[in-house]
């Protein structure tokens, strides 16, 4: 590979923002902040102070009280803590849970594990354009339903669910509502102060913070108690014990502050990039957009062609770092379950490419991606046997 890499995989992870790296470096510099944040001595209190500051930064981003946030290792752990935590705490009341077929693996596999333990899960299918119908959720809720978990922005397609409307259904019916907001936190405005959301998962590395740190928002500890996944100390209200990674927390806090300040300009930038990319590839024969522009987060554009092998397409445009709808490298050999749930065929799902952009993406990056995508499709089609 001699081509320069163009990174268009921001939905997988984002590069660390320079100001975030600087804040973390300052924290870890020798002799600066090293104490255990749970210790009562001055070194520990110094760490606890910066942890508190970071908690306030994240709380400001979500417009909530900082005490509502529990540090975790990322959205996967937050999702597990919320879903398993609620299910186990309330199993004496009922063992029915609800989620969607198009959730991230971190949610899907958690519910699958609970199914193996005897819980009953209703898997809702998306309707037109990938959106979950409010009536569909209302109909699925039963007297023994304990939790509904719906992701905000889909990681593959960018399809954005109306979590406010869905949350009100849950609240009206007395069911806890969890939102996987890994793709939306720091990217779109989230005001949880009056939102009908009981739990919300977020992670730092999706919005220019460090990998390995996230948080779970819990609206009301008393109303919705949860059972911890691990035991071993009193940190984070005993819900997530373990010594806090102070420098990662500082990075997440800084990333949240930057996101809060730059969100509007970030969104305008992403919208322009999305439109530029779609304009550049919309006339490729038989290309389909997975998720309508109207309901999708502009930082993600997922497109499919049915007549090209997805793995070869990815290798053909290798200098452009994107994600594929194909898992052909993996042992499963399965195409994206999310795209198949949207009605795409195996071949369409396998030939899907997810472009995702970010703060540092330029028009030149998009133009290079357009050129490479078109070139790779043409190459693969010229190689193919006749029908």
């Amino acid at each position, binding site marked *: 590979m001699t081509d320069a890499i163009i990174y268009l995989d921001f939905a997988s992870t984002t590069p660390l923002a320079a100001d975030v790296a600087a804040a973390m470096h300052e924290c870890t510099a020798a002799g600066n902040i090293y104490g255990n944040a749970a210790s009562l001595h001055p070194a520990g209190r110094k760490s606890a102070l910066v942890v508190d500051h970071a908690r306030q930064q994240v709380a400001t981003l979500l417009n909530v009280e900082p005490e509502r946030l529990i540090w975790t290792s990322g959205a996967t752990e937050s999702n597990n803590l919320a879903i398993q935590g609620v299910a186990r705490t309330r199993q004496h009341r009922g063992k029915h849970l609800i989620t969607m077929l198009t959730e991230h693996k971190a949610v899907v596999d958690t519910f699958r594990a609970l199914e193996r333990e005897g819980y009953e899960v209703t898997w809702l299918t998306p309707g037109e354009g990938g959106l979950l119908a409010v009536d569909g959720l209302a109909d699925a809720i039963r007297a023994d339903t304990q939790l509904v978990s719906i992701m905000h922005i889909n990681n593959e397609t960018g399809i954005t669910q109306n979590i406010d409307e869905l949350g009100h259904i849950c609240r009206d019916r007395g069911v806890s509502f969890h939102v996987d907001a890994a793709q939306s936190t720091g990217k779109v405005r989230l005001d949880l102060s009056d939102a009908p959301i009981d739990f919300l998962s977020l992670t730092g590395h999706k919005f220019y913070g460090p990998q390995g740190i996230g948080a779970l928002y819990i609206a009301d500890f008393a109303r919705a108690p949860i059972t911890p996944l691990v035991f071993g100390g009193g940190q984070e209200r005993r819900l997530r014990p373990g010594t806090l990674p102070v420098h990662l927390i500082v990075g997440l806090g800084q990333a949240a502050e930057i996101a809060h300040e730059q969100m509007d300009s970030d969104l305008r930038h992403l919208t322009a990039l999305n439109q530029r990319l779609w304009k550049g590839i919309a006339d490729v024969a038989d290309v389909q957009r997975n998720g309508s522009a109207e309901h999708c987060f502009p930082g993600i554009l997922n497109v499919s062609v049915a*007549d090209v092998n997805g793995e070869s397409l990815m290798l053909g445009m290798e200098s452009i770092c994107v994600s594929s709808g194909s898992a052909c490298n993996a042992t499963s*050999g399965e195409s994206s379950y999310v795209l198949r749930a949207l009605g795409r065929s195996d071949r369409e799902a396998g030939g899907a490419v997810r472009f995702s952009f970010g703060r540092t993406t330029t028009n030149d990056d998009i133009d290079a991606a357009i050129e490479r995508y078109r070139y790779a499709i043409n190459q693969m089609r010229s190689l193919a*046997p006749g029908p």
Partner: protein
Amino acid sequence: MISKDPYNELVRDCFSDPKHAGDLTNEHQITGVATGAESATGDRLTVTVGIDDGLISVARFRADACPHLIAAAELTCMDLEYQTIGELRDFDPHEIMRRLSVPPEKIGKILVLEDVLATLAQKFELSIQE
């Protein structure tokens, strides 16, 4: 350095510049074509050979397939040229797979190549008998 590259250098070379991709362009004393498909993935492969004076003079392929199968088809066509029909029948794609470092989970998908070559050999044997 980028580690865990799923494709070795030979796969990359064959994929980026498949010299044996395409169709036969000249007349040959005998021509044969066989097509195979992998139902699970929808991958398709066609191999065409031209035979003159008892030897495979040209072999070409077309593929809508993963990089490993494209590379395997390219190497196979290269190796088939100047071979006899008997050698076509005995052609063992496992040596090609070894050279391409095909990962174990993909070997099943590459075996479509074996099916195509077997069909091709069978067609030639039948045409010779006739």
